[in-house]
C-alpha cells in the first residue's frame, strides 16, 4: 500500500537507518512515550506513516517538536525499530526544507504571548529568516 512519496521515504530511511518493515504494530513505543498526550502523531504512527510514504502530514505536524528524544521507544521496542531515530530524521528533513527560513511571518501571531517581550520576537524574526 505504498501510495506516498517514495523518494522522501528513501531519504528518511537513509538518514535514520531505520527499517520500518520490522515493526510488528505492537504499539509499545507509544505506550512508553512520555510526550504521548502532546503529540498529534505518535511514535508508532511515525513508523507506519513513513512506511506508507505518507510523510507530509508528519512534516507539517507539531508532533515533531513534541518528541523529547528520550529514546524510551528505542529502548523498549521489541523489534529494534528505533522510532525516535525516525522522528529525528523527519525533523531534520523539515529543518532542511526551511533552508535558513526558520520563522515565517505567518508563524509570528501564533507565537505571541503576553509574557514574551516584543523585542525577543523581533530579534528572533531577524535571526531566523533569510
Amino acid at each position: 500500500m505504498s501510495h506516498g512519496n517514495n523518494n522522501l521515504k528513501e531519504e528518511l530511511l537513509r538518514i535514520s537507518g531505520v527499517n520500518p518493515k520490522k515493526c510488528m504494530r505492537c504499539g509499545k513505543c507509544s505506550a512508553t512515550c512520555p510526550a504521548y498526550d502532546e503529540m498529534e502523531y505518535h511514535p508508532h504512527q511515525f513508523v507506519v506513516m513513513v512506511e506508507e510514504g505518507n510523510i507530509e502530514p508528519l512534516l507539517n505536524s507539531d508532533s515533531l517538536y513534541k518528541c523529547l528524544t528520550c529514546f524510551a521507544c528505542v529502548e523498549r521496542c521489541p523489534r529494534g525499530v528505533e522510532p525516535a531515530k525516525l522522528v529525528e530524521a523527519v525533523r531534520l528533513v523539515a529543518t532542511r526544507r526551511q533552508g535558513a527560513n526558520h520563522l515565517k511571518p505567518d508563524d509570528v501571531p501564533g507565537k505571541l504571548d503576553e509574557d514574551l517581550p516584543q523585542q525577543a520576537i523581533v530579534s528572533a524574526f531577524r535571526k531566523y529568516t533569510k
Partner: protein
Amino acid sequence: MQRIGVFVCWCGSNIAGTVDVQAVSEALKLEPGVVFSTNYQYMCSQAGQQIIKDAIKEHKLTGIVVCSCSPRMHEATFRKTAAAAGLNPYMVEIANIREQCSWVHKDVPTGTEKAIILGKAAVAKVNLNAPLTPGESPVTKRALVIGGGIAGIQTALDIADAGFPVDIVEKKPTIGGKMAQLDKTFPTLDCAACILTPKMVDVAQNEKIRIFSYSEVEEVKGFVGNFDVKIKKKARYVNEDVCTGCGACTEKCPQKKVPNEFNLGMDNRRAIYIPFAQAVPKVATIDPNYCTMLKTGKCGVCSKVCTAGAIDYKQQDQIIEEKYGAIVVATGFNPISMDKFEEYAYSQSKDVITSLEFERLTNAAGPTAGKLLRPSDLEHPHTIVFVQCVGSRCENCAEKGKEYCSKICCMYTAKHAMLVRDKYPDTEVYVFYIDVRTPGKNFDEFYRRAVEEYGVHYIKGMVGKVTPEGNKLKVQASDLIMNKQVHIDADLVVLAAAIEPDKSARPLATMLTASMDTNDFFTEAHPKLRPVESPTAGVFLSGACQGPKDIPETVSQAGAAASKVIGLLAKDKLTGNPCIASPNEQMCNGCSSCERVCPYGAITYVDKEFRMPDRTTLMRRVAQVNPAVCQGCGACTVACPSGAMDLRGFASAQIIAEVDAICK
C-alpha cells in the same frame, strides 16, 4: 576388469521417440568393460527384467547399466533384478535417458547423442563400482525417555504399551513437569491435575516403566539401537525403596524457610520435602543446601520421626549404566527470566507476576489455596492487567527475550482472564495484545468466549511501563485502535513470559550429538516429514524441547515419537545404507574436520597402531565412521583435506570418471 552389460530401454516411444535406442546400444557396446549390449521395449517389465537376468548369467556380468527412466523411478527395481540373478545390487547404475534426455530434447540426433554420453558416464562409473553389503547391527529393546513431564510420560506409556521396557530420567524429585503446576487447561478447562495425575500413577504402576527421579543423564555413547548411557542418581538422602511417603518428616523438619520451587518461591517448604501431594514417586527428598544435618552434622529430626527408617544421611550419588536402543528427548521448557524487563517492574513489585505464578495463585493446592490474592498484601485484586508477548517476538533484545512466538501464551492468557471473570465477576480484566493467535481446535471460540461471554477487555497495544505507586500498579499502555494512551491503576499485573528450552537441553544435545537451532530447541530430521526424529538416528523428540507447544500438541507428538521408537525397537536388526562414508586410515590425519561437518555425529576417532616401514609401530589418531549412523551425504569427503574420506557408491573416482566421460 568388469564385465558390463548395457540395457537400453525404449519405454515404448517415450525414449525411442527421440532417442535412437539401437544406435545407443551399439555405441555403448564399444565402451571399455562392456561385453553385452541390447535394447528392449520395456526393460522394467517382467520380460525386460528376464533379459537382464539371463544376460547376467549367460555373459557372467559383473555390472550392469540400464539406460532408462530416472533412477528415482526404477533403480530399486533393477537392483532387485540384479540381486535375483546373483549380482550384487550395488553393481547397477542407471543412465537417465528419459526424464533428463528424451523428454526434454526434441530431435533424434540431439537426444541420441546425449543418451550415448549419459550411457558412457554410467558405464565409466560402473567400471569403478564395488559390491556393497549393508551393515547390520543389533537393537537393544529398551528405550530411554529423558524428561518426565507430560511429553515424557505419554511417550513412555505408549512405548510400554507396545511391550517394550522404558526408563524415564527426571532431574526433579518427581515426574509431572510443568503440567503438574498448572491449574486448568485450555480449551476445555478441565483441571490439569485431574488428567495428569492418573497418568503419573499409570507410569508408576506400569511394570515396563522404571522411573529414575532426581537423576540426570551423565554420558551417552554408542549409536542407534545400541546406546550406552550413564545416569547419575543424585543422593536424595532417603532410601526410595523404604520411604512410604507418609510425610511425617516434612512436617517435623525444623528448617522451614526454604523457598518452594513448586510454587515458584511464593511460599516455603521444609529442607526435607515431597514436592506435591500426588508426586510420583511419592518419596521424600532432603535438600542438601538447606538441611542442617547435612551442613553441620547436628539435627537428625527427620531420621528420628521416620518410622520406616528411610533416612540415610550418608547416601551417595549413584551411577547407573544401562543400554538402550532408542532415546527420546523430552526436556521441556521454562519461562524466561523477567528480571531484565525493568519496564514491567517485575523485580520491584511482588504484584507483577508471571503467568506460571498466576497458575499457582489460582491453584487449589497453591500458596493461597486457590484464592486469587495479591502476593504483596493478600488482598483480592479488583483490576488485573495481562500483558502478552513479554519477551516473545523480541528481535533486538537477544539478551532479554526470544525472537520466536511462544505459541501458548494467547491461549493461557484467555484462560486466565476467563477464569478470573468467572470466579470474581467484580474484577476488571484487561489483556494487552499485539495479535491474538488461536489456531487450534476450539481455540478461537475459546478466546471469543472470554471476550463475549466473560467481558474481558482485550486492547490491541502493548504496555509500555508499569510503575508501583502505593498499593497500585500504574500501567501505561497504548490502545492502537482508539489511538490513545491508556492509564490503568491495576492491582495485579500478569506477564505472559516467553518460554525457552530447559537449560539442561544444550549439554544433553552435545552428549547425543543431536543438533539444535540457535534458540536451543532441538532440530528435527525434516521440518515437515520427520518432525519427531532428530537428525541423529535413534534420537527422537517429544514436546516443547523441539519448539513451543501446548498440551494437546505435546501429547500427540509424544505419541508420534513413541510410535517411531516402537518401529525401531520392533526390529531385531538394523540394516544400514551401504552407501556410506569410509576413511582410508593410512591417509587419515585425524584432524577432526570430517567430524565437524557430520550432521549425524557418525564420526569418532580412535588411536590406532600403524606398522611403519622401518618395523616400528606408531599410534595415530584416525577417523572411524559408524555405519549404523552415517546416512551417506558426503559432507565429510569434501571437508577432508587429505582425501582420506570417501563415499561408497559415490566415490570421488567414480564421479571423476563420470565427469571425464561426459566431457570427453
